[in-house]
């Protein structure tokens, strides 16, 4: 399956490949179909089509010096490259590039853990380090820090944070880009840059103080294409003494307004870790592995239901409309006191609020209790998330191979949640998707200051028609979200142009500024063309 980058001839690519082989070793330059297969996105909604973002080759340098050489060669021949840390951000493009034919710069051989400090509570790692690596390193040395990790622990802290990835514990740590401190970057001309205090060669505060003096440039390298990040530091949470979780239930549909307000009050003071919202009413309406509740279908049959109609449904089902699991990390006495306080605040705010499901453990979690906890909530890497693609009645006989999350940034209010389902239904129906949906939107709370809401859109490698249908669904959801002022916080390559096109303030001033920077920093457009809609001048299309 020979593909070439846009505007690059086979002869030019061959010349670049020859120089890359000389620079980093021929065994680390991959061009065969079999090798390239590993750089396809397993979750691609474009799988097997002419639009699939297949690379022409891949390179795996082992050091910063080799990355610099690889970038200089790319620049000399004007061949685009796409850096990946471990290529594991499934749902968001995996190891594949934005533009078909781009050469993947695979950094997984750069896998050194350079520092973990449990006095100042930070680490410094290379891009090829995985969460498993970091966890194993900490365990083997008995260091007293906790990692915050995403769903599967096989990815890279560097790659995840650069993609604005998220985790599951305490607010300041689960936004992984926010918790970074220190970057080393190979610029498109091959020059090496260190941000923040790394700009001062003898400073010992590179992983402690983010900004240095003057403008902060780190943000350009998150979801960006201005350089190849070769080191990153991260702030870490000191291992707390204890963990406690408890469930709160709110009986009525409109209680979600007070529920969210109270949870925000608790989280923004640092009293709770990540809250996990749920809805027993939604579980009754759309039970896993079973057909939708006929009463739900009746409720949704004649236009979007009123609050009173939804409450009548909830009352008939005899379950609370909403739930939230509150998580506490800290000293034993403090987590108990905070749970008491949280219950008191909930009772004040929500008539009829109830509580149960209290669970306590010391941290780190004793081995014999690991089966009782959600590992990622405890900073332990896991892979249990892959169970979501099992066959069930909603998936039919041909269960999906993957999914693309169509998840929007939504204000952290109950009112937003009450509106969100309406928007999803609008987006689905616009493309003839008539699947049952409920009024109960339960948000992801990975980002501490916003809700992230939206469905997963499934992909199926052996079913291009289903993929095409789901692609239309995803696009419809993006367009519908935008009407409400919402937009995806990240997305796979197939939708990035569409998503960033929604940033329309002052005639897309933000994108125009990004393009200005791109032209100045990377005039040959060799680093990740097309990433989040930022194309080099040679590939840029006229914006309407």
């Amino acid at each position, binding site marked *: 399956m020979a593909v070439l980058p846009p505007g690059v001839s086979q002869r030019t690519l061959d010349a670049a490949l020859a120089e890359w082989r000389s620079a980093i070793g021929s065994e680390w330059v991959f061009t065969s179909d079999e090798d390239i297969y590993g750089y396809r996105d*397993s979750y691609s909604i474009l799988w097997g089509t002419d639009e699939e973002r297949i690379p022409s080759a891949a390179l795996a340098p082992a050091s910063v010096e080799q990355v610099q050489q690889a970038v200089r060669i790319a620049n000399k021949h004007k061949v685009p490259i796409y850096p990946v840390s471990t290529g594991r951000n499934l749902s968001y493009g995996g190891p594949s590039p934005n533009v078909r034919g781009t050469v993947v710069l695979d950094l997984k051989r750069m896998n050194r853990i350079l520092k973990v400090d449990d006095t100042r509570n930070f680490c410094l790692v290379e891009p090829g380090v995985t969460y498993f690596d970091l966890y*194993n390193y900490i365990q083997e040395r008995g260091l007293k820090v906790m990692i915050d990790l995403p769903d599967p*622990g*096989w990815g890279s802290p560097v790659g995840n944070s650069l993609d604005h990835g998220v985790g599951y514990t305490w607010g300041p740590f689960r936004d992984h880009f926010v918790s970074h401190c220190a970057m080393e970057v190979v610029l498109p001309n091959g020059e090496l840059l260190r941000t923040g205090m790394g700009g001062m060669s003898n400073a010992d505060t590179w992983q402690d103080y983010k900004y240095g003096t003057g403008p902060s440039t780190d943000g350009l390298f998150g979801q960006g294409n201005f350089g190849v990040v070769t080191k990153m530091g991260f702030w870490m949470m000191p291992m707390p003494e204890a963990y406690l979780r408890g469930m709160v239930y709110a009986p009525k549909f409109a209680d979600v307004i007070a529920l969210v307000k109270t949870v925000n009050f608790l989280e923004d003071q640092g009293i709770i870790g990540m809250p996990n919202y749920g809805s027993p009413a939604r579980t009754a309406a759309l039970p896993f592995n079973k057909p939708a509740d006929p009463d739900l279908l009746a409720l949704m049959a004649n236009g979007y239901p009123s609050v009173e109609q939804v409450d009548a449904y909830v009352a008939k089902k005899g379950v609370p409309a909403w739930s939230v699991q509150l998580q506490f990390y800290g000293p034993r006495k403090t987590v108990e006191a905070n749970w008491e306080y949280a219950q008191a605040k909930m009772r004040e705010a929500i008539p009829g609020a109830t509580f149960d499901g209290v669970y306590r453990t010391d941290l780190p979690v004793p081995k014999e209790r690991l089966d009782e906890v959600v590992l990622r909530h405890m900073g332990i*890497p*896991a892979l249990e998330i892959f169970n979501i693609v099992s066959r069930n009645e909603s998936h039919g*006989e041909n269960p999906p191979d993957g999914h693309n999350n169509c998840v929007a940034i939504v204000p952290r209010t109950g009112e937003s949640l009450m509106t969100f389902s309406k928007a999803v239904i609008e987006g689905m129906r616009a493309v003839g998707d008539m699947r049952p949906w409920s009024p109960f939107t339960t948000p992801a709370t990975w980002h501490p200051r916003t809700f992230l809401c939206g469905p997963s859109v499934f992909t199926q490698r052996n079913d291009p028609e289903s993929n095409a249908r789901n692609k239309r669904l995803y696009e419809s959801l993006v367009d519908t979200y935008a009407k409400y002022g919402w937009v995806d916080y990240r997305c796979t390559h197939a939708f990035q142009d569409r998503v960033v096109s929604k940033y329309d303030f002052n005639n897309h001033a933000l994108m125009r500024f990004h393009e200005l920077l791109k032209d100045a920093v990377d005039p040959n457009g060799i680093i990740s063309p097309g990433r989040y809609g930022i194309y080099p001048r040679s590939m840029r299309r006229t914006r309407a």
Partner: protein
Amino acid sequence: MTTEPTSPGASRRGVLQAGAAAALASALPFTAAAAMAKTARFHKAVYDARFPEGVSFGAEMERGGTPTHAIKGDITPFYNSLYRQWKEAPTLIAGLTSANALFALELMANAAGMRVAFRAEQRLDRFGAPQWLLEGPPGLIDAAALSAADRDWGLFAARLAAACPARWSAPASSTAACAVASPAAVDERVTAWVLAPVVRI
């Protein structure tokens, strides 16, 4: 060989069973002793103890001298131990797990220079009847398809794995489907598999 999906009560199943004995005698070294001896070449075998097929698979691997690792759904601990091993060198492994567990291992295997050399996945055919979908080297799959129906699938899969080449050299060129009488956990897409190092030319 590519066969059509089977259907409940169709005559295809009877044809498969009728031809099985003769095909096996010439195509596969499936005497128990021969198969058991070959399982010892695996670095490790992993099985999901929630499935009867998994228990049977693990027992057969152990009889052959292969170290085994039992899981109950979550592949994480096995993944982490293998992750450390494969950083040193790729090694031949076999398993009978959910398809999801294999997915996680397969992506790691691809990065370590390995591929799925044999796969038998439980699926539903278009009539909703469970079947095993086989994929692997032609000689192995052609004969296996003819002998698979109504067997102890865990045991049979262990022997198929043992007969699979220890090095991967080309994409699977044979697929086949065969009926299964009593699936244990259809929702989990129970899958038997071999992950083998790639032969680089």
